[in-house]
């Protein structure tokens, strides 16, 4: 609805966006740079040379590159199989491959140790274990599993926006077989989306924390984020603080060096959209045997990467002791009884409260940016908000600690500020997308029928926007609920979130309780996630 609405609310929205953006992101980053310069004395090489920090940085970059090289092709294959073939049960598979999105990172990593490590599920049942699951290879593999749904989603959106089925059909009736069509048409059209997915996966892997911490740290494999965590949680001396600050700054510099050129090259190519009159079409039918083979491989991949680890986790949470067979005779709810303490319940309450408040504020902030970007000044602000998506959580947490730690250190308020800064783009994108799709003529018609600006928005725009608002709230709520990267750096006595309790429990080596807490956390995220997704779909259907 570009051009719709009057200038006054949009000017107000721009002002209402710039102030929190400065407070949540710009000022803390400025303080981060200032402190890094003052405390480190500009001696970057000196800091990096100390105690394997250079190794951590190298590990981080190599890991991000390795995850990108595997997760993006996997995402492309998933997108092609699930969006471009007549695979039986496509809707089921499309929902199932997104499962890693609703399973907290930490839980996914931990579930792999329960499934494949020594004394894990496969070891107990079949005598098969993989020692490397806790080490760089395990970190890489689980991060690939974790990142592939994101790559799949970005490529699937690219397929829908740029490679409409008629373009592929035109190639087929021009004499190209399915493989030639894939190479000469589909992949060429979807290349900008694949490149964008690669940039996104690379940058998000740079800032990932939970999986390297759970699977890498016990084997001595450190990344920048786990090193920052070690510096701030275990260290405590001024040198550790300087290290953490320098690493946080380095992380954001590497992310910026990746994103800035990619955005300028890919941005214009990604904006080419599908024509408005393009219609959804059925995929060109393929051979039954190929489709069956695809279903078997897909099922095998999901069983290996998600189902078996989650089943192992659930069994660990109810099995009497480590190493005993997970048969019903050895089942007990002792682990659940053990973790359902007042401390856990308080943490649960804090997590839920924080997530609800954060999601609600984020929808308001996201909506304000979406309105503000209708004018030029607001568009620049919206671009900055989008960039916060790739700002590593560890960097933001350290920056906020420096900026506001004096007053808010160890408080829930500081964690809330971190959630707002990190997840703002999550709320903004769906709302902005829905506003773009809202035909301006509908608002004009309401205004021409005598409605004021606010009445027109309330009576005409709000209903079609409802699914996007609910979707944005849901994404923010669920992400905040299992967020651990920033919470683990910012919590203090009495402000632990549930995810922090789970992380601490794992570091204490308490397998049963950690598994029980992981199950609780997963159910907390997955059940409302599925219910709200269902409600959002219903709203969208009714609005459509």
């Amino acid at each position, binding site marked *: 609805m570009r051009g719709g609405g009057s200038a006054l609310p949009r000017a107000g929205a721009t002002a209402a966006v710039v102030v929190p953006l400065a407070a949540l992101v710009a000022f803390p980053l400025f303080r981060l740079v200032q402190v890094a310069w003052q405390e480190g004395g500009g001696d970057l090489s000196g800091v990096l040379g100390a105690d394997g920090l250079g190794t951590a940085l190298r590990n981080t970059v190599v890991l991000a590159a390795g995850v990108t090289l595997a997760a993006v092709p996997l995402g492309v294959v998933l997108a092609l199989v699930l969006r471009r073939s007549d695979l039986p049960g496509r809707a089921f598979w499309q929902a199932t491959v997104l499962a890693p999105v609703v399973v907290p990172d930490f839980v996914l990593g931990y579930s792999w140790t329960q499934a494949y490590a020594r004394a894990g599920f496969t070891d107990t049942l079949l005598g098969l274990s993989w020692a490397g699951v806790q080490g760089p290879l395990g970190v890489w593999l689980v991060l690939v599993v974790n990142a592939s749904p994101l790559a799949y989603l970005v490529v699937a959106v690219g397929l829908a926006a*740029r490679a*409409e089925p*008629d*373009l592929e*059909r*035109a*190639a*087929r*009736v*021009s*004499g*190209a*077989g*399915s493989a*030639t069509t894939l190479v*000469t*048409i589909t992949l*060429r*059209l979807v290349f900008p989306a694949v490149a964008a997915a690669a940039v996104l996966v690379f940058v998000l892997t740079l800032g990932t924390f939970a999986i390297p911490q759970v699977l890498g740290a016990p084997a001595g494999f450190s990344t920048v984020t786990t090193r920052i965590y070690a510096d701030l949680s275990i260290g405590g001396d001024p040198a550790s603080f300087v290290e953490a600050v320098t690493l946080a700054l380095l992380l954001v510099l590497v992310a910026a060096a990746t994103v800035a050129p990619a955005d300028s090259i890919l941005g214009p190519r990604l904006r*080419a959209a599908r*024509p408005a*009159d*393009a219609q959804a*079409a*059925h995929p*060109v*039918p393929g*051979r039954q045997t190929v489709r069956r083979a695809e279903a078997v491989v897909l099922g095998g991949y999901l069983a290996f990467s998600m189902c078996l680890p989650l089943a192992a986790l659930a069994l660990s949470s109810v099995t009497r002791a480590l190493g005993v067979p997970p048969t019903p005779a050895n089942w007990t709810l002792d682990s659940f009884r053990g973790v359902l303490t007042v401390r856990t319940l308080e943490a649960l309450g804090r997590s839920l409260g924080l997530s609800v408040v954060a999601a609600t504020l984020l929808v308001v902030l996201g909506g304000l940016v979406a309105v503000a970007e209708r004018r030029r000044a607001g568009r620049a602000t919206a671009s900055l908000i989008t960039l916060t998506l790739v700002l590593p959580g560890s960097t933001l947490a350290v920056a906020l600690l420096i900026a506001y730690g004096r007053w808010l250190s160890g408080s829930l308020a500081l964690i809330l500020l971190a959630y707002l800064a990190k997840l703002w783009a999550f709320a903004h994108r769906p709302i902005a997308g829905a506003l773009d799709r809202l035909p301006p003529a509908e608002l004009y018609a309401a205004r021409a029928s005598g409605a004021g600006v606010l009445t027109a928005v309330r009576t005409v725009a709000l209903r079609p926007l409802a699914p996007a608002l609910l979707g944005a709230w849901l994404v923010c709520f669920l992400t905040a609920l299992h967020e651990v990267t920033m919470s683990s750096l910012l919590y203090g006595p009495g402000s632990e979130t549930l995810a922090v309790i789970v992380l601490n429990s794992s570091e204490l080596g308490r397998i049963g309780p950690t598994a029980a807490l992981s199950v609780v956390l997963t159910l907390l995220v997955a059940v409302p996630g599925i219910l709200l997704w269902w409600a959002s779909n219903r709203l969208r259907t009714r609005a459509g």
Partner: protein
Amino acid sequence: MPAEPALEVRDLVVAYGRTTALCGVSLSVGTAEVLALLGPSGSGKSTLLQAVAGFVVPSAGTVRLGGTTVAGNCRPVPPERRDLGVVFQNYALWPHLSALDTVAYPARRRGVGRPQARSEARAILERLRIAHLADRKPAELSGGEQQRVGLARALARRPAVYLFDEPTAHLDTHVRGVFLAELVARQREAGAAAVYATHDAEEALGLADRVALLSEGRLLQIGTPQQVYDEPVDLFAARLTGPASLIDAPDGGGTVLVRPGWARLGGPLEAEVRAVWFRGPHSDHLVAGPLGELLVREPGPPRHPVGARVGWTLLRSWPLPGPTG
């Protein structure tokens, strides 16, 4: 022994889940014949073309091309191995290829080397008088130019059957006529059969050797343009093919259908002019009398104002065999 039709569809059924898009359609198209599929949106025209092209698998029935079964009692032949050229409603030009490379694409898939394929493509573009657009990509072409490139791509395939899926739907009126003339000329020149889907009666009747009327996935009627216009099987078919009025027959023989040109003003029957439309070369008068309301087309500008009492004469009529409600 009569020659095999270029395309033969028998008892074709296509279902999308619980929705049946085509219910038992049978028709055939002879060599060098143009068959128009005329029907409203959702009548199954595009689905029929997609089943013929191999984009959807029929639930039942057969599709034969040049006597070879490509769908039905066999594993469906994939689209690239069917002897077809398709011109799409939304052009379906590949945004990363120039017009020249787009038209060279079918030859490349036949295994022709790039220089030769480009040379063939340039010749086709020249025949269509768009060689000057060879280096442009779709975003740099107008709608009419894009559709000509789409036609050139289909011609480059040198097929036995062309499928045109509402190719003029997105074209401006003034471009449409030129494109249609080009399309028919090239298709006749190639001696190929063509199936042309459209919802525009004027286009279908003016273009095709035969017209097939579709409604809700069923074949209502098939015949020459004159047959389907003059002798529609029911009121729906009548309204699909052009303006039609239903009046009581002057001889008391029930309800009859009257086309605008089948009556003229002046004569023994009395009526009052209810509305008048000036349409350039002719004018339409809506008149109402004891027999009912009907549209009368007269050459030149309107001859009577609204409200005038006029006489009229019925030249011919058609007793509708189907329901008239």
